C-alpha cells in the first residue's frame, strides 16, 4: 500500500505541463499576474519540440509587403483550414500575432532584418504575402531560447525538468493538480494547484515515419481526456510533404518548407515539375500555371502568382504520394526537391544553413549541388483538447486550460506552416490570462484525493513489479506500423476499422508490458507508461477519421472523395464515457459573425482594394 504522505508534495497556484513555446509563454503570463507558477517538462529546459521548428513564425506585420494585414492572414488561415477552424481563434491569432512577435524582440530575440532594419519576413505555403518572421532556418531555437531566458528571471516561477506528469488530479469536477515522476530518480511527485495548463504538444510518435521526437506520445491529450476533457478535430493529422527519405535511419526528419519558400522546386524521376498538375480549383486563381510565371514570382514580380510548390501541405503531400505510386518517384520512394538550380550556393548556405548541415552530415549530400529526396512525414496534430477561444479553458473540466499544439481550433482541417509558432505565443499568453482569471475565483487549494494518487502510482509501478511481460519497445513498433499502414495519408473505412481492432489488441498487450526493475532514468519504464497515451491518441484519431466520411484538408478518404457540404458544418468531438469507452459526437458549428465571413469569403482583389 502506498503511503501518500511519504510522497513529496508541492503546492502552486498554477501548474503548466510542458515547456515548449506555448508552456513558457503561458508561464511568463502567469508570473506577470503574480501567480506562483510551476512548469513541468519531460526533457531539459529549452529542448522541447519547439526548438526544432525551422521556417518561421507567421504574423501580418507587413514589413516586407505592406499590403499584408490581419484580414489577409485570417483569410489565408481559414482557407488553409478548409473552413473548419474556430472563427474566433483564427481572428484572435491573426490580430494578435504581430504584437507577440514584437514582444519577443523586446525580450532579446534577434530576427533576420529587412534592409530598413525591421524584422524580415519570408514566403511560406498558403500565405499570400511574405509573412514569416524568421532566423535563417532555426526560428524555433530563437523562440524557445528567448522565452527560456526571459522566464528564468521571472519571480515565483519554478521549472521541474525531466519530470513527467502521469495523471491529472481532480477535486470533484475541477482540477487539483497532477501526479508526476522524476526521470532521474524514479520518485513520484504530487503537484497541487488551482489550475492546470496543458501545453504538451501532439502525438506523432504513434506513426513510424514522423518528424516528431519521443516526447510526442500524446500525453496531454490523454491525461485531459481521461480527466473528462473533450478532444476535437483529431482526425486531422498533418503529413508534411517534405521529410527526408534516405538514409533509413533519418526517414521522416523534416526538411523545412523554407526550402520551397526560398524557391525550391519539386520534380519527379522524369524531370517534370509535377505540381502544376495538382492545383486545386479553389487555389487556381492565385497560383502560377506556368514555370515562367513562377520564375517571375521568385524574382520578386508582385504581379506574378505563387508557384504551385507553395500550395498547402495536404495538397503537396498527396501529390508526392501520387507521383510515387504512379512509378515516377525518386530511387528511395520520394520526390526530388531542388534548390541548387534556383539559388546560388552562397544564398542557400546563408538562408538554409541547418538544412545544408543536416544533409551534409546525415545523408552525405550537398544541397547546393544536388537535389534532395523527400516524402511525406507525420508532422502535426491540428486537433487536440477542445477549448474556449478567448480563455483557452477546457469546455468541460473547470480549471483545465490548453494551448499550443495540444489544443484544437485554430487550424481546422489543415495548418499553414508558420502558424504554429505564432499560435504558441498568442494562445500561450491567453491561456495564462485565462488561468489567472479563473484562479481569482478559487480561494483555497482544491482538496487532494489520496485514492487518485495511489491509483496512479499503482498503475505506474505495475510495469516494474511484474515478474514477466512483453518488451514495450516492440509494442510501440507494432503500433507505429499499424498507424503507418492503416491511418496514413489516404484512408478508408476497412483499414480504419482494422486499425481500431489492432489498437484494442495492442492495449491488452500494453497492460502487461514489463520494464526492467530499476526505476532511475529507465527509458524502458517510460516507454511502457507512454503506451497508454500513444494508444489512446491513436484510437482517437482512428475513430474520428472513420466517422468523417469526406475528404477535407489533411484527412483524405478514398471511399469518400471530395469535400461534402454537410461535413463542413460539423466538428468531431470525442469524450470518455463512464464505462471507459470513447464517445464520438458531431458538433454543429456556430454561424460565423458576419464581419468575419465577409473577409474569409472575399476575393483577394476586393480584400486588397479595401472593399471588405
Amino acid at each position: 500500500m502506498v503511503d501518500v504522505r511519504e510522497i513529496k508534495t508541492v503546492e502552486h497556484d498554477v501548474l503548466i505541463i510542458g515547456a515548449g513555446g506555448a508552456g513558457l509563454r503561458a508561464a511568463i503570463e502567469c508570473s506577470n499576474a503574480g501567480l506562483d507558477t510551476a512548469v513541468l517538462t519531460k526533457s531539459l529546459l529549452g529542448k522541447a519540440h519547439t526548438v526544432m521548428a525551422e521556417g518561421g513564425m507567421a504574423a501580418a506585420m507587413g514589413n516586407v509587403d505592406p499590403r499584408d494585414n490581419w484580414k489577409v492572414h485570417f483569410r489565408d488561415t481559414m482557407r488553409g483550414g478548409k473552413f473548419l477552424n474556430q472563427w474566433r481563434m483564427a481572428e484572435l491569432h491573426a490580430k494578435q500575432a504581430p504584437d507577440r512577435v514584437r514582444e519577443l524582440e523586446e525580450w532579446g530575440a534577434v530576427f533576420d532584418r529587412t534592409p530598413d532594419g525591421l524584422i524580415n519576413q519570408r514566403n511560406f505555403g498558403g500565405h499570400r504575402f511574405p509573412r514569416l518572421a524568421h532566423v535563417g532556418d532555426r526560428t524555433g531555437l530563437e523562440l524557445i531560447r528567448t522565452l527560456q531566458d526571459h522566464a528564468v528571471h521571472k519571480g515565483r516561477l519554478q521549472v521541474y525538468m525531466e519530470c513527467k506528469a502521469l495523471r491529472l488530479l481532480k477535486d470533484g469536477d475541477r482540477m487539483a493538480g497532477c501526479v508526476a515522476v522524476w526521470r532521474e530518480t524514479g520518485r513520484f511527485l504530487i503537484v497541487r494547484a488551482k489550475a492546470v495548463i496543458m501545453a504538451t504538444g501532439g502525438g506523432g510518435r504513434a506513426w513510424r515515419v514522423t518528424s516528431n521526437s519521443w516526447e510526442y506520445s500524446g500525453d496531454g491529450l490523454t491525461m485531459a481526456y481521461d480527466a473528462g476533457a473533450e478532444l476535437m478535430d483529431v482526425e486531422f493529422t498533418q503529413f508534411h510533404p517534405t521529410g527526408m527519405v534516405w538514409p533509413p535511419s533519418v526517414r521522416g526528419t523534416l526538411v523545412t518548407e523554407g526550402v520551397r519558400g526560398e524557391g525550391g522546386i519539386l520534380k519527379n524521376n522524369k524531370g517534370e515539375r509535377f505540381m502544376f498538375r495538382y492545383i486545386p480549383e479553389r487555389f487556381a486563381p492565385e497560383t502560377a500555371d506556368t514555370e515562367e510565371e513562377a520564375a517571375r514570382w521568385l524574382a520578386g514580380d508582385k504581379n506574378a502568382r505563387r508557384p504551385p510548390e507553395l500550395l498547402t501541405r495536404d495538397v503537396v503531400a498527396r501529390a508526392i504520394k501520387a507521383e510515387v505510386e504512379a512509378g515516377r518517384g525518386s530511387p528511395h520512394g520520394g520526390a526530388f526537391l531542388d534548390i541548387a538550380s534556383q539559388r546560388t550556393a552562397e544564398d542557400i548556405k546563408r538562408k538554409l544553413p541547418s538544412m545544408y548541415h543536416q544533409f551534409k552530415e546525415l545523408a552525405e549530400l550537398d544541397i547546393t549541388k544536388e537535389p534532395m529526396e523527400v516524402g511525406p512525414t507525420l508532422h502535426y496534430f491540428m486537433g487536440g483538447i477542445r477549448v474556449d477561444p478567448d480563455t483557452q479553458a477546457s469546455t468541460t473540466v473547470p480549471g483545465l486550460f490548453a494551448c499550443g499544439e495540444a489544443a484544437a481550433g485554430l487550424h481546422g482541417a489543415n495548418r499553414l506552416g508558420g502558424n504554429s509558432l505564432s499560435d504558441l505565443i498568442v494562445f500561450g499568453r491567453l491561456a495564462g490570462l485565462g488561468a489567472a482569471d479563473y484562479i481569482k475565483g478559487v480561494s483555497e487549494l482544491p482538496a487532494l484525493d489520496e485514492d487518485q494518487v495511489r491509483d496512479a502510482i499503482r498503475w505506474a509501478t505495475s510495469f516494474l513489479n511484474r515478474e514477466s511481460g512483453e518488451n514495450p519497445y516492440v509494442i510501440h513498433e507494432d503500433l507505429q506500423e499499424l498507424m503507418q499502414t492503416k491511418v496514413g495519408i489516404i484512408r478508408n473505412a476497412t483499414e480504419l476499422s482494422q486499425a481500431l481492432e489492432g489498437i484494442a489488441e495492442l492495449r491488452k498487450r500494453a497492460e502487461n508490458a514489463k520494464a526492467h526493475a530499476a526505476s532511475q532514468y529507465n527509458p524502458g519504464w517510460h516507454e511502457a507508461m507512454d503506451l497508454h497515451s500513444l494508444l489512446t491518441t491513436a484510437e482517437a484519431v482512428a475513430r474520428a477519421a472513420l466517422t468523417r466520411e469526406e475528404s477535407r484538408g489533411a484527412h483524405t478518404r478514398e471511399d469518400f472523395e471530395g469535400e461534402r457540404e454537410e461535413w463542413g458544418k460539423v466538428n468531431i468531438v470525442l469524450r470518455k464515457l463512464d464505462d471507459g469507452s470513447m464517445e464520438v459526437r458531431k458538433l454543429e458549428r456556430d454561424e460565423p459573425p458576419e464581419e468575419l465571413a465577409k473577409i474569409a469569403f472575399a476575393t483577394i482583389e476586393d480584400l486588397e482594394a479595401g472593399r471588405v
Partner: protein
Amino acid sequence: MSKRTFRVWRGDAEGGRFVEYNVEVGPGMVILDALHRIQAEQSPDLAVRWNCKAGKCGSCSMEVNGKPRLSCMTRISDYEPEQIITVQPLKTFPIIRDLVTDVSWNFEQNKRIPPFRPKAPGPDGKLRMWQEDVDRIQEFRKCIECFLCQDVCHVLRDHEKKQNFVGPRFIMRIASLEMHPLDTVDRIPQTLREFGSGWCNITRCCTEVCPEHINITDNAIIPTKERVVDRFYDPVAMLTRKIRGEDPARAREEGKVP
C-alpha cells in the same frame, strides 16, 4: 548490414563499467541509432538523453572514442570498420545513469547573467537593427546548449574551479548580450569578478568541439576579454591583444574605423 561492437559505459554515481554490445548497423546509421537498437533489442533500461535526432536540441551529448560529440550527428561509418566504438558520458558533469549526466549546473549559471534590457524604440515606435550589426550575435545564438564546449574546457573539467568560471557557453551568452545593438545593461565588471573570464587561457578546445561550428573563442570570448581589459587588467587578453591587434568590430562600434 554488418555487425559492429560498441563498448558502452553502464553505471551510476557509485561506479560502473564498460559493457560490450554487438549491433547490426545499416547505411547512414549514427551512434544514437545504435544505442536505440541496444535499447530495443538488448537493454531496454540503457539510459540515453535525446530529443530531436537532427542536431537541433543539444540533448544527446556524450563522448565517443574520447571526443565530445552529438551522438545523433555522428555517423558510425566515420569509424574504421574494425574499430571498436567506445561510448561514455560527459566527464565534466556528475553521472546520473549510463550515458546521462546532471547538467543542471549550466542552467544555474545562465540564471546568474543579468537579462536583456532594451533601449526605448525609435520615434516611429519601432525597434531597428541592421543585419550587419546582428550577424555576429546571430552566430552566438545558434548555440543549442549541448554543453560539449563546457565538457571539454579544462577549467571546468577541473571540478574545483567550476565555482570560478561560468565556462565558454556562458561567456558567449554574455557576449551575445553585450554586443546586442539594443541592450542597455553593463555586465563587464561582473564578467571579470563573478563569471571568471580571466580563467580562460584561450586554448580554443571549446571552438573545436562545437557542433554548430561557432567560433566561440575568437568571436565571443576574446572580444569579451577585450572589453574587460579596456577597464580591468587581464594578462592573457593583454597578450593576445598585442598579437592580434584591436578587435575590429569593437573599434567600429566606438567609431574608430568606418
